[in-house]
């Protein structure tokens, strides 16, 4: 029997779905850890990015943060954080993952506010808007497409990276793969393949759903961002997990 058959058999066993460490439980862990990490990332990166875009400073800092996040292995943060004062458990993993959500959120928030047409900003000022009103009524609404784009990139990034929590026994769908590797090729090959398929499907689903939500919620006039190519294609790519 080939490994593919093994994977299909494994996926067809209802117990593999409903066990206390089955697919449903692992999916639940995966989603809540990811959601918490993205929320934390937004809470930190959005105000900071919007403020930096508003005052027009910190562009180099955004680039540095993005580059640094590429060089630091996710696995290292996932093993280091539980050994600090944070302690073992979900908070350490959520914190480590949220750090990898920050670069796309920060860069897009900064860029979104920064890219607002200077003439629009001038017009707002000419109408007597204060700096705060200008931010709230002009800059933020115009930055929404960028914020939405950053949110999608960050969410997909975190859902993908959350797989690695399995290295520190931190739950999530990655556990299915790592358990399969532990069993060896003969008895675990099918499980490894099934786990890989589940993770890949989840990531593609999150990407697809968020893209659809983005399209449905954004007013037509604000959808221009899609047609503007990034300065460099890889700038648009998040660090790989």
């Amino acid at each position: 029997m080939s490994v593919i058959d093994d994977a299909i058999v494994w996926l067809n066993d209802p117990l593999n779905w409903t066990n206390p460490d089955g697919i449903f439980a692992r999916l639940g862990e995966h989603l809540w850890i990811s959601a918490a990490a993205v929320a934390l990332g937004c809470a930190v990166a959005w105000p900071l990015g919007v403020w930096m875009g508003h005052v027009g400073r910190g562009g180099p800092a955004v680039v540095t943060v993005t580059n640094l996040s590429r060089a630091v292995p996710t696995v290292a943060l996932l093993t280091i954080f539980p050994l600090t004062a944070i302690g073992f458990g979900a908070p350490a993993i959520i914190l480590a993952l949220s750090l990898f959500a920050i670069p796309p959120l920060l860069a897009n928030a900064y860029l979104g506010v920064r890219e607002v047409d200077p003439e629009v900003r001038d017009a707002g000022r000419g109408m007597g808007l204060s700096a705060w009103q200008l931010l709230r009524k002009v800059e933020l609404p115009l930055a929404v497409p960028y914020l939405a784009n950053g949110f999608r990139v960050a969410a997909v990034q975190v859902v993908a990276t959350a797989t690695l929590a399995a290295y520190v026994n931190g739950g999530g769908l990655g556990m299915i793969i790592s358990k399969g590797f532990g069993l060896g090729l003969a008895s675990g090959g099918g499980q490894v393949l099934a786990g890989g398929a589940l993770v890949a499907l989840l990531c593609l689903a999150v990407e697809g759903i968020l893209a659809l939500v983005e399209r449905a919620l954004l007013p037509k006039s604000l959808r221009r961002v899609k047609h503007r190519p990034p300065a460099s294609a890889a700038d648009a790519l998040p660090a790989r997990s």
Partner: protein
Amino acid sequence: MVHVAVLGLGAPGDDPRNPWFSWSYVSQNTDTLLAALREHLFLTIVAVSLATVIAIPLAILAYRVGSLSGPILGFTGVLYTIPSLALFAFLAPFTGIVAPTTVLIGLTMYALLTIVRNTLTALRQVPADVLDSARGMGYGRRAMLWRIELPLALPGIMTGLRIATVSTVALVTVGELAGWGGLGELIIGGFASNYYRPQIMTATLLCVALALVLDLILLAVGRVIMPWTRRRSA
């Protein structure tokens, strides 16, 4: 989970026997550290070289044949969404659970995507009037590619190479699960053997340092082969 919970009571906090950094650890384990560093460097160089050799012709093909660029970009985009662990999981049953091939194919694919996208963007950014004047001067397609388009795209290609290299260094650690993780094996091994902090920290620092050094080397190479970009950044 049980052993994590039990040891968790004692492990955090500041145990003087388990410091974050210790020179005696480094001096007593120099051989292990160097072996892991060598493996890490080997995996990175092989993956990035393979990726470069495949990616640049692929990007040129996508640039030349307009109808191919959509599918190539779309396919690489979908692949990029799939996490490395899942990719290793797809490959392992066919290439072996403990095999450098599994890790190398995975690493090469991710590096490939970065390089293809950057090269294609760089080629597309060559100004149309430059191409027009080259054509007017009688350049053929091949001469145009080698003497006009590729040199003008080189800065973008080098950026892609640097990003791919730095990302690959970080990504090698994930290969631990497939038995070939370079310094990642020390990081996760340190975690597994009683949360041994000096080993985790030393391996992490070496990993970040390796990424930084390779990045600087590529930056220097770029300056040597593209003397015309030196003035701009100075």
